[in-house]
């Protein structure tokens, strides 16, 4: 060996991960990218966090109370939690951190997380000097008051913008790790926080290597320079077939939905029956099994399987038989005859549509498959490839008849897959890119947000999703599952459906 490069120049006791891009920022208020959020989760803490079952559990708050009207959230903060500069965390710090997110000076892209809080608007418009809804009761009690009941609020407090930071040192967190070094575009080094009270960290630290190219990361992994990588599609089957690696592949079920959106605000897809015909015309299951190598779970509707607390009704399962639609089968399976029949009945044969896609090769391949299915159903699809920013811009403005996109959870709640995506107040970049509008669905989604208990909430969400499936502004394809592979010396590595859930507490090295 001419130059020994591995694993001798690794830091002993550190675990090596890969990032595909330099994090834009590690300021919790400003983070929007996955790289930044997954690191910030290890440096900071919030009032609450998620456990393995996606339930909300205490983090810095040891307990909380929600008032009967669903408006007031009172948090009791643990004593003795301190920032890495040594100062204890008090209720005042949460007020500071949350107001900082809303402060126009911060230019935070995440203000929407707190926009349901009473007085948030007034503060943002600089009418008031503090947010009325953030109340410091005493040193260890903090209360948030909302303008109206909003059931997913606690879930939203698990996100990065809700992390606490000290006023005097805004880059000092409370987390299990401390940022030691950040070499722009090269690597970040995190060191264990020896004073962390929230549990035992088993590694000395984490090194994040910034490697933009997937294949390079795979090579680094094979050389033992990385301990865990997410397998790119191109390397998946190779590792799966390799005996040495196949047992070390872990699957990670993601909270996401991949879909074909149809512009419901203008012809031809303002016709719900035609949209439904499109859903019948495409054999999504086959595409998932062959083209997508089963790297996902079939989707029955927009809400991911892991978040759906109800079942999609199949034929004959309706509880009441009063309405015409009550008994309708909502599980849509491939049925080309039915698709043709609907198109014929609607008198829409020979229609043309433009499908917008990004210029990624796998997306283009998929688009061609969809194109051929739709052609045999009688819809001529013209594929238009665009570069990502131009693509986003075009679909935000509703220029496309059809488009291919995915939605990933910000917080684990079915609401996150209904309100932004299908409520008529969210046209365009806010999430509703199909410009779907249905008063009943709007109402049900709002009712779900306002519901005071989980049962009611799920009932409203379920009804809303049923309407959406019936009217099919989306063809929901699948919920993607990612695959990771770990080195033999890595123990206890766990995968989470949301990247901020990994606080780096489980992983350990055993050589």
């Amino acid at each position, binding site marked *: *060996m*001419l*130059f020994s*490069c*591995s694993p001798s120049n690794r830091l002993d006791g550190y675990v090596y991960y890969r990032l595909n*891009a*330099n994090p*834009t*920022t590690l300021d919790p208020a400003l983070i*929007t990218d996955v790289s930044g959020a997954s690191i910030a989760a290890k440096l900071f803490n919030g009032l609450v966090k998620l456990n393995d079952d996606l339930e909300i559990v205490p983090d810095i708050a040891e307990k909380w109370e929600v008032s009967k009207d669903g408006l007031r959230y009172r948090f009791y903060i643990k004593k003795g939690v301190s920032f890495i500069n040594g100062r204890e965390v008090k209720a005042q710090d949460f007020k500071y951190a949350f107001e900082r997110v809303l402060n*126009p000076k911060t*230019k*935070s*892209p*995440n*203000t*929407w997380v707190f*926009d349901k809080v009473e007085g948030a608007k007034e503060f*943002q*418009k600089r009418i008031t000097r503090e947010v009325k809804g953030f109340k410091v009761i005493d040193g260890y009690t903090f209360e948030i008051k909302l303008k109206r009941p909003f059931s997913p609020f606690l879930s939203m407090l698990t996100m990065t913008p809700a992390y606490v930071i000290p006023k005097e040192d805004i880059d000092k967190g409370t987390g299990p790790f401390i940022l030691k070094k950040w070499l*722009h*575009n*090269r690597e970040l080094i995190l060191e264990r926080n020896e004073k962390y009270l929230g549990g035992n960290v088993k590694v000395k630290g984490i090194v994040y*290597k*910034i*490697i*933009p*190219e997937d*294949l*390079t990361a795979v*090579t*680094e992994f*094979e*050389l033992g*320079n990385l301990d865990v990588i997410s397998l790119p599609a191109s390397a998946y089957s190779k590792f799966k077939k390799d005996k040495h690696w196949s047992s070390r592949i872990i699957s990670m079920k993601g909270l996401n939905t991949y879909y074909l959106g149809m512009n419901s605000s203008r012809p031809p897809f303002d016709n719900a029956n035609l949209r439904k015909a499109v859903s019948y015309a495409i054999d999504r299951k086959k595409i998932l099994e062959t083209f997508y190598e089963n790297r996902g779970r079939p989707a029955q509707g927009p809400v991911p399987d892991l978040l759906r607390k109800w079942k999609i009704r199949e034929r004959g399962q309706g509880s009441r038989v009063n309405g015409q639609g009550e008994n309708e089968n909502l599980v849509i399976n491939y049925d080309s005859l039915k698709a043709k029949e609907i198109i014929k009945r609607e008198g829409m044969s020979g229609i043309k549509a433009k499908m917008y896609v990004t210029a990624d090769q796998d997306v283009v391949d998929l688009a061609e498959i969809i194109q051929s299915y739709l052609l045999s159903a009688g819809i001529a699809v013209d594929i238009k490839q665009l570069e*990502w*920013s131009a693509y*986003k811009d075009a679909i*935000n403005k509703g220029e496309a008849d059809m488009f291919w996109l995915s939605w990933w959870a910000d917080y684990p709640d079915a609401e996150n897959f209904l309100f*932004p995506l299908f409520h008529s107040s969210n046209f365009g*970049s*806010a*999430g509703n890119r199909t410009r779907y509008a249905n008063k009943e669905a709007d109402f049900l989604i709002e009712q779900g947000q306002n519901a005071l208990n989980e049962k009611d909430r799920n009932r409203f969400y379920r009804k809303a999703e049923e309407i959406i499936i019936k009217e099919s502004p989306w063809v929901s394809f699948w919920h993607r599952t990612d695959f990771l592979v770990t080195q033999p010396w890595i123990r206890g590595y766990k995968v989470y459906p949301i990247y901020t859930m990994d606080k780096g507490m489980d992983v350990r090295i055993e050589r």
Partner: protein
Amino acid sequence: MLSLAGERAHPEIIENIKKEMGIDKGFIRQYAGYLKLLMHGNFGTSYYTNRDVLKDIAAKFPNTLALAFVATLIAVPAGVTLGFIAAYRKDGLIDKCVNAVSLAGLSIPVFWSAIMIMLLLSLKLKLFPPSGTGDIRFLVLPALALAIPAAATLARITRTTVADILKMPYINTAKAKGLSSLSISSVHVLKNAIIPIVTIIGLDFGSYLNGAVVTETIFGWDGLGRFTMEGIIKRDYPVILGCIITGTAVFVLVNLITDIAYHYLDPRIRLHAKDR
């Protein structure tokens, strides 16, 4: 705009950012504003990271320079030597081999050859680390990937030029004078062939300094090319502008140096005001 303010930004926040960035003003005023910044040696700050663009470029430029240097150091001896040998054995087997190899070197896309180089020298033979930014060990692979097409071009240019020179009467004269073939090739041939070779080296070196996007990305080299590319993907205009202005300046500078080099290398190109 939306990527900056976030997908769910309120219209008022978008207005605020527009005002702060000055894009609510007319194009002429925006352009004048940017020129004014430039005059002060200020490239502005990145929209996303708020870092000073000039400082980032200054930090990445030495990496790109080092890469360009090593790549040139590999490409020039390899390309020129191959070209010379092929010219001396014109139409022979060696010539045909060199021709084939150089054609392949020119045709193979960098992203493919880069991956092959990595798989062979790094994964199989474990000679060099596959990626990263650091000392000379990290430089070899990306430099090699860059050097291959450059060496191929050089080999072809050298071969044609040298073959033409070998047909010249003054070569026969030199032979007739009884000069050794070594002194013929080093003094008479090389000196006459050097102008096109230097032109190609200058052009290649200039383009390396503008950043080799693909190579830098694959090998994770923290250079100007990757920085530019990231700027383009995120639509980070101060970064894009800064990189383009730097790149243009460097390219012009390298070409100027090449032109000055002509003057020293070939007396026929010397420009004397008096002669005109």
